[in-house]
């Protein structure tokens, strides 16, 4: 198991191994799964999470979940808020606001209190908006390819202040 060989490296310091672009450098606010890294299983975080890599399983974040444009997610997701630019296969349950950027590609059902969808985003699944409101609005969209923001029209029709 353990051998007793020692590393003879004169310059060894505990502070030389941190990449300059490490999120651990001051001011970082989130757990980060970077590009080129894969996670499998039940991934939970008590705070914000930024994902640029691959995840399979389930993701739950007590804070804001940010999914980058290069991320590949095959997982059911639960989060307080979400900002999504990558591709997701799985159901999303967002307690507050979900923002979908143009590069987002979702195959799965979405539940959120409020959503913002940028032109070009694809949501292939059932969308349920307005959790916690008296009359939630359901939008069937298979797929929703968004030249504009269809949910905002629904909002105007229903006069629901909770949308968008």
């Amino acid at each position, binding site marked *: 198991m*353990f051998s007793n060989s020692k590393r003879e490296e004169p310059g060894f310091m505990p502070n030389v191994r941190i990449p300059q672009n490490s999120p651990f*450098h001051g001011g*970082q*606010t*989130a757990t980060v799964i970077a590009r*080129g890294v894969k996670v*499998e299983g039940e991934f939970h975080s008590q705070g914000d999470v930024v994902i640029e890599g691959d995840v399979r399983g389930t993701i739950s974040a007590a804070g804001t979940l940010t999914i980058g444009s290069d991320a590949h997610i095959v997982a059911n997701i639960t989060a307080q808020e979400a900002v999504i630019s990558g591709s997701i296969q799985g159901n999303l349950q967002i307690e507050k606001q979900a923002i979908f950027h143009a590069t987002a590609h979702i195959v799965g059902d979405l539940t959120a209190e409020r959503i913002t969808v940028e032109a070009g985003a694809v949501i292939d699944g059932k969308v349920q908006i307005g959790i916690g409101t008296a009359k939630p609005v359901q939008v069937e969209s298979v797929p929703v390819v968004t030249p504009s923001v269809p949910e905002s029209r629904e909002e105007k029709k229903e006069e629901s202040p909770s949308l968008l």
Partner: protein
Amino acid sequence: MNRLYAFLYDDILSAPSFQRTVANIETRCSVLGIQGRASRLAIFRSAKEVVEGMVKDGAQTIVIVGNDKTLEKVMWFLPDLPVTIGYIPVCEPFGIAGLLGIPPGDAACDIVAARRVETLDIGKINDRYFLTDVYIEDSKATVRVDDKFTIGAIRAGTISIRNLGGVTAQGVAIANAKDGWLDLGISPMVDAAPSRFPWAISSPKREETCVRFKEGRIQSQEPIDILVDGHQFNGFSFEVSIIPNALKIITGRNKRLEPVSSAILPSE
């Protein structure tokens, strides 16, 4: 002679260039009333037996005199002993001394005498303790975190698990040894971007994954070399965990053990 103190000198201090510094340290300790039994580490001498002998003789504070490597030579067994650790850095590297707020040379004697004791977390890998970090360079090893998820580089990458160490641009510790968490960093190997000047050597850009955890298992299909507090080991699987508040160590007033922003929140 103060029987409550014992001094452990690194064998590098027997070099003539350190004689004056060592003499100054001994004089300063005598003035401060903390001069105790002294022993010297040597190649064929078990550091553990030396320290256990000191404790048996009644020492309650073991003062390590040398550098960060000296500290690492004894850290793997010290948390099991009922002692407080003092540290007098004499030569480089002394990055840990900086984090503990201890100046190099005989000025550190005043810090030891002041006895400002902090209790730090200590990492454990298999049956061995570590103070700073565990480091695996460019391997396909993965880490099973809290028996819930497995994380690793898709191709290969460098894995570091930190308890204490790393310094931000502000000179503050990145890994907090008082928060009860280990910081897992993974830097995957990334191909260098095509250079505009093909003859120029461009270094690949690495982005680091950061996850906090309490227990995990490093596992690999192939045997991997792993550095624990700078000491190299080899194996297929290693259990890693954090033991909160396990090490009593004397620090200076200017210690930098906790990040300015403790905003990275742990994984459950």
